[in-house]
């Protein structure tokens, strides 16, 4: 167990280091002078030089990199070029939107997908299975931004039950905040739920075909009982793997949905920072997200151990 932990920690550190270096180098060779982007096409050369000096962009690359990494290690992420405020503060505010949104979406998607997948597997090739599979197919095919616009048109514009977008802020209370996150969460959860339903269905079907389940049935367990006691638990491993991937994706990959609902989340911050060549925000954000992916993978691995005791033995052995 501690071995696994140590391995994971080493992987985390190595990933973060490699990410920081790659991102820094990529941003350094990309065209686009941050000072010019900040000041626009009307700016004079001496103004640009003054701003470059203020931002430290006239220092050697290696010095800029070391300063930044040194700051990262001491928890100082530096100051955004364009926003002129601490990067940690910017990211902190955005995490408060993106993290709850991702959790909300994954909860919704799981709540729909696992029962639907299990039912479809249990009723293999019957009407329920065919119905669920068809819905899952549609869910995968529908682009989530389009679904999001339908949700806005119906629930915000026509019915007026929810805001068309924006984030109320946690200061306004938990309910208004959740209210502004509900439509985006549904829009994000639907395609995820569709994928997860199919994974769950095929995982349960596979387990149902295995020897121990057949043995259990032979010993007189009903199909339902065999499903509950033996199949579902064993089928969870691929399901949890997919959920882990989906969570990492949701944390950063929601740029489109954040735009449709104009939510101030991490995805939009990253997008905006790249467009404005706010290098220090891009670097810090990418390293942070890489860290989040590694941590999620670690949690997924731990979950395997909880689900399947045999793996626990394998780790100890």
């Amino acid at each position, binding site marked *: 167990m501690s071995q696994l932990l140590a391995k994971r920690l080493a992987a985390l550190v190595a990933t973060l280091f490699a990410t920081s270096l790659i991102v820094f180098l990529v941003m350094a060779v*990309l*065209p*686009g*002078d941050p000072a*010019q*982007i*900040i*000041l*626009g*096409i*009307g*700016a*004079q050369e*001496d*103004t640009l030089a*003054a*701003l470059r*000096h*203020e931002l430290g962009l006239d220092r050697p690359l290696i010095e800029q990199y070391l300063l930044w990494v040194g700051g990262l290690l001491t928890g100082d992420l530096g100051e955004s070029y*364009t*926003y*002129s*405020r601490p990067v940690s503060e*910017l990211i902190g*505010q*955005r995490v408060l939107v993106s993290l709850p949104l991702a959790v909300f979406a994954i909860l919704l998607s799981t709540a729909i997908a696992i029962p639907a997948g299990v039912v479809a597997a249990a009723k293999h090739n019957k009407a329920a299975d065919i119905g669920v599979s068809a819905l899952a197919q549609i869910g995968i095919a529908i682009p989530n931004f389009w679904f999001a*616009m339908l949700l*806005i*048109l119906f629930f*915000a*514009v026509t019915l*007026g039950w929810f*805001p*068309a*977008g*924006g*984030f109320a*802020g946690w200061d306004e209370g938990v309910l208004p905040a959740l209210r502004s996150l509900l439509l985006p969460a549904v829009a994000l959860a639907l395609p995820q739920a569709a994928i997860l339903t199919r994974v769950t269905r095929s995982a349960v079907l596979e387990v149902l075909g295995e020897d121990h389940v057949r043995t259990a049935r032979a010993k007189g367990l009903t199909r339902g009982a065999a499903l509950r006691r033996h199949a579902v638990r064993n089928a969870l491993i691929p399901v949890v793997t997919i959920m882990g991937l989906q969570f990492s994706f949701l944390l950063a990959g929601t740029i489109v949905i954040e*735009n*449709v*609902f*104009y*939510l*101030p*989340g991490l995805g*939009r*911050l990253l997008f*905006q920072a790249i*467009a*404005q*060549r706010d290098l220090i925000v891009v670097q810090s954000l990418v390293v942070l997200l890489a860290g989040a992916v590694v941590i999620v993978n670690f949690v997924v691995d731990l979950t395997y151990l909880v689900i399947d005791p045999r793996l626990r033995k394998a780790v100890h052995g």
Partner: protein
Amino acid sequence: MKRTGLFAALVLVAAAFSLPAQAAKTDFTMGLVLEPPHLDPTAGAAAAIDEVVYANVFEGLTRIDRNGEVKPALAKSWTISDDGLTYTFTLNDGVKFHDGTDMTAEDVKFTLDRAMAEDSTNAQKALFEPIETVEAADPKTVVITLKRPTGHFLFNLGWGDAVIVASETAETNKEKPVGTGPFRFVEWVPGDHITIEKNPDYWGNPVALDKATFKIIPDPAAATAALLAEDVDAFANFPAPEALPQFEADPRFTVVSGSTEGETILSTNNGKPPFDNLKVRQAIAHAIDRQAIIDGAMFGLGTPIGSHFAPHHPAYVDLTGTYPYDPEKAKALLAEAGFPDGFEATLKLPPPSYARRGGEIIADQLGKVGIKLEIIPVEWAQWLEQAFKGKDYDLTIVSHTEPMDIGIYARPDYYFDYHNPKFNEIMDKLAAETDTQKRYDLMREAQKILADDAVNGFLFELAKPGVWNAKLEGLWENSPVQANDLTEVRWTE
């Protein structure tokens, strides 16, 4: 009995009708497409900064009003010496910054000295270049001495880059702006919104609104939905022109089409063959069908222009007829220039839709006369690096949104690579001329030279489609400066 009953009913009805009037709205939410990078107009060129704080939070000695005219602001009056070199400003009484300190002549001196300083990051440092010295004669009097007579000096002082700031708060204005305006800053949640509220200690006419919120909504579809759901009350510059007919048909909304300072041009690399040949540039000008571009790329919004000047300006001359749309003439000119079979060139397009959509149409139009364009879509950062700074382009499309920026054609190292001593001479005369009519004559002459030289493909003036709640009044239709001046905005019921 009956009568009192009727009376009571009348009172009730009247009360019912008067209730909504008592609860008249005093808060206001405006949608913004671009978020300002920070809130200090003296340290950044981004239009989005002025769109929030100009005239609302910060004020200058003078201001530019909704018609583009110069008006007194913090300076209630001024005198100009006969040689045009000394400006004496008298400041308004009782002006306080939002932190409670008095605004005096010393603050004006501090602001202008800071903007002119060696290490200044004021994006429009050139505005202050003609200033020799700034003196605070007494707390209410500022004397500015110029190096040479400067015709547009009072106009320049009305720019957002010249607003008056206090020495104590100048460094923190980016995050927490402290000005003298009728609104004071409340909060900014990056990526989401900026809120300002009525300044109870304002020196001038108080505003009608108690609170104003700028909500950042970059996506056109989201902007449409936000207006329809009445989450926002107004978009002064609405990003989805395709949705305008829907709003025009809806009585809840007012739709206006204002003009901006944005000359949208097919920028041409005048220093690079074959574009250094006047006949080639004239051929391009003849090959462009402006109305087709406006209809196809801008849903019909925009005013054709024939030179680099805003049509709403009093000195504007309509030069769209200089080289009318005539593909045959274009082909003939190309043949005369030595390209009977045309030539190939590149067209670099930055992200705004006027450029991307307009570029497709231009490529088609020029293709018909034999100029085959390869379209290269570029990001904004790449555009600045390659086209604007590196002059590494043949043709590109961009909107020049600075007010009164005809002077860029006289800059020795500008990306058009255009050099005409006659034009520069006019610009020098213009800079020194203070008489309005004579200034207008010079501006007309300058427009004509640019049109004749076909320096760029002059396409259209960017429109400013505004959509807002029909119960609102006082918003600006046009954009003589890139501001959302809320000082006269009120709800009518």
